[in-house]
């Protein structure tokens, strides 16, 4: 997060008046498990991209290229929904 504001500098009532500023809020540190991709098993079906609640699956030209670890909270949904025949994502303990 950028410079924290002082109490008298904030919009009244904790209103967020800048749309989309959640991107500035780095939630990656909340993670216990982190998703790790085995690209050799992935067929780019992008089911994980549809399900990720934090918009943290990075896709380029229709292909999964990795995770946004600054925002990924490690919920494990991507690993869960990745189809049985691929199982390309493993959740590994963060600080091992």
């Amino acid at each position: 997060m950028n410079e924290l504001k002082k109490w008298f500098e904030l919009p009244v009532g904790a209103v967020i008046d800048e749309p989309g500023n959640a991107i500035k809020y780095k939630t990656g540190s909340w993670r216990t498990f982190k998703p790790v991709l085995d690209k050799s098993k992935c067929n780019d079906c992008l089911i994980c991209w549809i399900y990720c609640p934090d918009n943290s699956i990075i896709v380029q030209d229709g292909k999964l290229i990795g995770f946004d670890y600054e925002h990924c909270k490690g919920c494990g949904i991507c690993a869960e929904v990745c189809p049985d025949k691929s199982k390309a994502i493993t959740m590994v303990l963060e600080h091992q």
Partner: protein
Amino acid sequence: MKVMALTGNEAVAEAMRQINPDVVAAYPITPQTELMHRFTEFVADGLVDTEMVLVESEHSALSATVGASAAGARAMTATSSQGLALMWEILYIAAGLRLPIVMPVVNRALSAPINIHGDHSDTMGARDSGWIQIFSENAQEAYDNTIIAVRIAEHPDILLPVMVTMDGFIISHTMERVEVLDDDVVKNFIGEYNPKYKLLDVKNPVTMGPLDLQDYYFEHKRAQAEAMENAYKLIKEIDEEYYKISGRRYSYVEPYEIDDADIILISLGSTAGTIKDVVDELRLKGLKVGGLKIRVYRPFPRDEIKEFLSNASVVGVMDRAIAFGSPCGPVCLDVKASLQGTSLSNLPIVNYIYGLGGRDITPKDIIKIFNELEKVRISGEVPNLPRYVGVRGEENYIEQKAKLKIKN
């Protein structure tokens, strides 16, 4: 201006008609029912433009009001007792979101045991919820305070919800002479409501009530505390403006015969009126007594309390609620806290708990209180614990304790 015969409830409904809120959401509860009954008549008769939302509970009533206010509407509701208790969760949300909702509260005892009559237990419990609280002595004040409250709530440097209270039945159901301002005078006084943020303003999208963790929650609460301080500074300006249109001058507190008074009795709401009568009576007998009514209870008028008590020899504080387990009632606690550390730290203060569940407080009771305070003044012996006034058995209890030489 016209003079009307109105009950407290009708007077506030009349004020609401003139305020003409965009949205009102409410659920009926005695003794507030008549207020909303009257207001919904105005809605049905097309006398207001209000969207009236009838909900299934007070939790929903205040929730709908919060939603409407966040959307950008001027929104109101009203309640009593258990209704206010059921609103608890949303009270803090309305204040934290800084929504300028005005809510008349017709004071009533809290269950259990169930009781529909007036005391201050309901609003006293909500005293630290972030709402401004204004107490009314009679129907006229309830009317005036409701209109003034709109300006206080919506002031850009305040933006806090406001409760306007009146004592259940004693004021809400008693018909009095009320001076009602002209509709357009009220309309001009309150002006248009132009909130800075509106959820329905799709061109300028905002998020209200987002998750706020260790890094910012405290800052937002600090800002909210400052809004109360701003209210403490600014309410007098708004009262002054109201004086100009009404001829009625209100203040945070109202002193009565206080200049040379040795004994001062502090109270809120309708009891202040009875105290004035008793003060007149006792003054005829040469007793130097006075009354001090607190009108704005939150923010607490700490400076005015100090100022008006500075020449007193002994003070009584009337509490129409018990703060269970606290050294004294809520009003007394605030009065003592305001004097602590000043030259008045040692001023003898006696707390009187009275009138719970609508128990009458008569001039006779108040004369007794003044007499007891006179004894305290002479003897210098100040009871530590609150005195319970008008409750059967209390005198036997005190006698018993005296025999056992227990100091209280």
